[in-house]
Structure formats: structure tokens, C-alpha cells
């Protein structure tokens, strides 16, 4: 958080059928619908999140990710980051306050990987959902489905990992938590963090620009991941892989798809970092184990099925 970029704030996901998508993200994942706007977008949040929304769904004729946004500590930091981005040669676009309901102005830019990101400092603080701010209970009793705790991170696939690293680390203040290096020492995967978390954003090298691999949501325990797997079967939801463990981050995970083919993850556990920790390195020849720690074999779908 060296430059005032604090945490993941929201992700806007394109869906082919809004009703089916809302049902998936609310009934199955357990996100809570908090608003809709006159463009037809639907705003959702996980119950522990303090701001009004973290996931925005937009109906479109191709699925994928419109943008992911990070929340900045305050307006002065946002102004400094804006200057730093321009000095770095990044084209920025100012999205006015209120374009997303109850969200302050956003600074939008494209990373060299082809993905669109945003920074913002203000969003309506609605508090954790379903519990009081004073003497809070452990959890609200009327959550649905997987009862996801928070929107945690995204994994993006695209080219130009080195230039993207430069932007995220040197301009935005992320640090490298974990990486995969090929035989020549070129980084083919980079897991970047702002916090003690294993990742707040991750990139894997891919020739095509701007592809979306998944949006991930946090669960507390392995039992919760198994329960998520049960719910995926009960609802005949398209599964990708899991439950299993990653070598990278060592998180325990399951992957599945929303009704438009966007990949979701729910996971628990995983490594933590402090500023004195060195990045964890995996060698590309161990990529199977790095991605799927138990099978130790890659499945083609995980590497190539993207939106």
C-alpha cells in the first residue's frame, strides 16, 4: 500500500443473460443485491464488505471483464496517483462521480496486458451486511448459497507481463508475492499484492490481450469449499476443477463458471506475506504442481478457457 492503493474495490463483469447471472451470483455464491441503475447494471456485495458494492453485472453480447477497480486511501493520494500514471506515460480517463451509483470519481487506465483498471477513493459506506456495527454478531443468519465472505482478487491473462509489473509495482505500489519463471528466467505468472494477502491481482502470460480468467471470492474454511462443491452439483452449475489445492499461494479452491461462461473461484486459506518476505518462485517445469498441487497435471481448460 506504499502509494495509497488500498485494496480491490469492485469488478464489472459482462453477462449474456442478466436474470440468470443475478440468480447465480446471489442464490449460489451468496452475494447480496444492493442496487440497480438506469443502464440495467446490477450491483452486488459480499456480506463482510463495508462499501455498497464490489461486483457490478452488465448485460452484453460477449462475456468477460469490463474493468477491475482498486480503492485508494483518500482523494489526495488519488490525485498523486493520477499524476504518477500520467508521468509514467499511461493514458487516463476520468469517470465522473455517480457513473457507478454512490461511487466517487474513478481514474481509468489500461494496463499493458490489455486490461482496464480503475482507481477511486470514495464509495458509500453501508457497513457489513446483516449485522450491527456495535456489538456485532458473528454472521448474519439469512445468507444464501456459498455465503462468500468477500470479493478477493482477479486473475487476468494477457501479454506484456514485464511492463504490467512495472506499472503495478513502481507506480501503484503493489509488491510481487509469487511468480512463475520459465527456463530463461522470464516471468510467465505474477501474483501481486497490496496487503498481507497472497494476491490482490494476478497475471498469467497469454498472447491475446485483455482476457479474463476468473474473479475470486473468499471462504473461511475447507469445509466451506466442500459445501460450495456440493452446491455446484445440486444446482448443476458448470464446474471447472476442484475441490483441490494450488501450489501457487497454497490456497484451497474450487473453480466453476457463471451462466455466461465467466470463471469464478471460491477458496480458503493460502499464504500470507509481510514486507520482509521474499517473493515465492515456481519453475515453469513444475507448473502442473504449481497450479494443481494434488493432480500435478495441468488441464488444458484451465489454461485456455477464458472470456
Amino acid at each position, binding site marked *: 500500500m506504499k502509494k495509497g492503493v488500498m485494496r480491490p474495490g469492485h469488478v464489472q463483469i459482462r453477462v449474456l443473460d442478466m436474470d440468470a447471472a443475478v440468480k447465480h451470483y446471489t442464490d449460489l455464491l451468496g452475494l447480496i443485491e444492493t442496487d440497480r441503475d438506469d443502464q440495467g447494471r446490477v450491483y452486488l456485495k459480499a456480506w463482510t464488505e463495508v462499501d455498497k458494492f464490489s461486483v457490478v453485472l452488465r448485460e452484453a453480447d460477449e*462475456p468477460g471483464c469490463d474493468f477491475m477497480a482498486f480503492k485508494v486511501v483518500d482523494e489526495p493520494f488519488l490525485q498523486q496517483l493520477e499524476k504518477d500514471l500520467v508521468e509514467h506515460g499511461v493514458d487516463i480517463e476520468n469517470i465522473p462521480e455517480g457513473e457507478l451509483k454512490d461511487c466517487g470519481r474513478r481514474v481509468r487506465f489500461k494496463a499493458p496486458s490489455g486490461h482496464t483498471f480503475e482507481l477511486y477513493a470514495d464509495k458509500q459506506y453501508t457497513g457489513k451486511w446483516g449485522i450491527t456495527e456495535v456489538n456485532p454478531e458473528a454472521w448474519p443468519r439469512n445468507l444464501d448459497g456459498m455465503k462468500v465472505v468477500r470479493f478477493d482478487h482477479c486473475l487476468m491473462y494477457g501479454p506484456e507481463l514485464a511492463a504490467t509489473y512495472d506499472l503495478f509495482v513502481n507506480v501503484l505500489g503493489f509488491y510481487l508475492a509469487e511468480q512463475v519463471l520459465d527456463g530463461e528466467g522470464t516471468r510467465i505468472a505474477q501474483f501481486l499484492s497490496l496487503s498481507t494477502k497472497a494476491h490482490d491481482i494476478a497475471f498469467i502470460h497469454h498472447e491475446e490481450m485483455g482476457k479474463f480468467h476468473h474473479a475470486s471470492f473468499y471462504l473461511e474454511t475447507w469445509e466451506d469449499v466442500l459445501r460450495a462443491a456440493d452446491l455446484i452439483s445440486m444446482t448443476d452449475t*458448470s464446474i471447472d476443477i476442484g475441490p483441490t489445492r494450488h501450489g501457487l499461494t497454497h490456497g484451497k479452491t474450487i473453480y466453476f463458471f457463471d451462466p455466461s461462461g465467466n470463471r469464478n473461484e471460491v477458496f480458503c486459506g493460502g499464504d500470507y506475506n509481510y514486507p520482509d518476505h521474499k517473493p515465492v518462485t515456481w519453475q515453469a517445469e513444475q507448473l502442473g504442481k504449481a497450479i494443481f498441487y494434488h493432480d500435478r497435471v495441468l488441464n488444458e*481448460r484451465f489454461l485456455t*478457457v477464458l472470456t
Partner: protein
Amino acid sequence: MSDAFEITEQCSGNRFHCEPGQSVLKAMEQQGLKCVPVGCRGGGCGFCKVTVLSGDYECGKMSRVHVPPESRACGEVLACRIYPLSDLTIECRPREVAETATQQTTTKSMR
């Protein structure tokens, strides 16, 4: 199975049954066949692209990136988002060599 349609995948010669209202890809997966690659199963990733050579079917929503209107018109569609209305002959070739299909197919309606 009496109402089921028969799907024939031409490259592999695989034949399988598909119930009315069931997607061709789901029917294939349920019968343990692998003649069409399985991706997201949601019309989003384009992995299960096939060409319908003959027969009638309905289409669900599919990503415009993978199935632009001109592809859809000539039967190049995603197996996860087609629902047969008759027996179908489909072809799933490696993506690099996929080419334009014949024009014998009709898309009855949107789903």
C-alpha cells in the same frame, strides 16, 4: 429415450442421444464422449464450436466474439448452446482448420 434425437459427430463417427431441451454438449458429456472439447458450458469461451451440417435446432445466447451473426447463419455455433429439434449431424474440427459450412441448417428461434 423415445423422444431423443440422434446426434452424429462426423469427424469421430460418434453418435449419441440428446433429449429435447438438452444441449448437445451436455448430452455428449453425459454419455462419456469427448468428440467436442468442453469449456465453460455457458456460451462464453468458444471452446465447443461445431458446424451443424444438417438438422434443425434452437440456439441459446452465445458470445458474439465466438459466434458472430454470419457464423451463426451458416451453422457455426457452440455445442453448449444448441438444442436439437431433429436429428443433427455436426462436425467438430480442430479450430485452425475450421472452415465455412454448408447451408442446410436453420435456426428456428432464440432461447
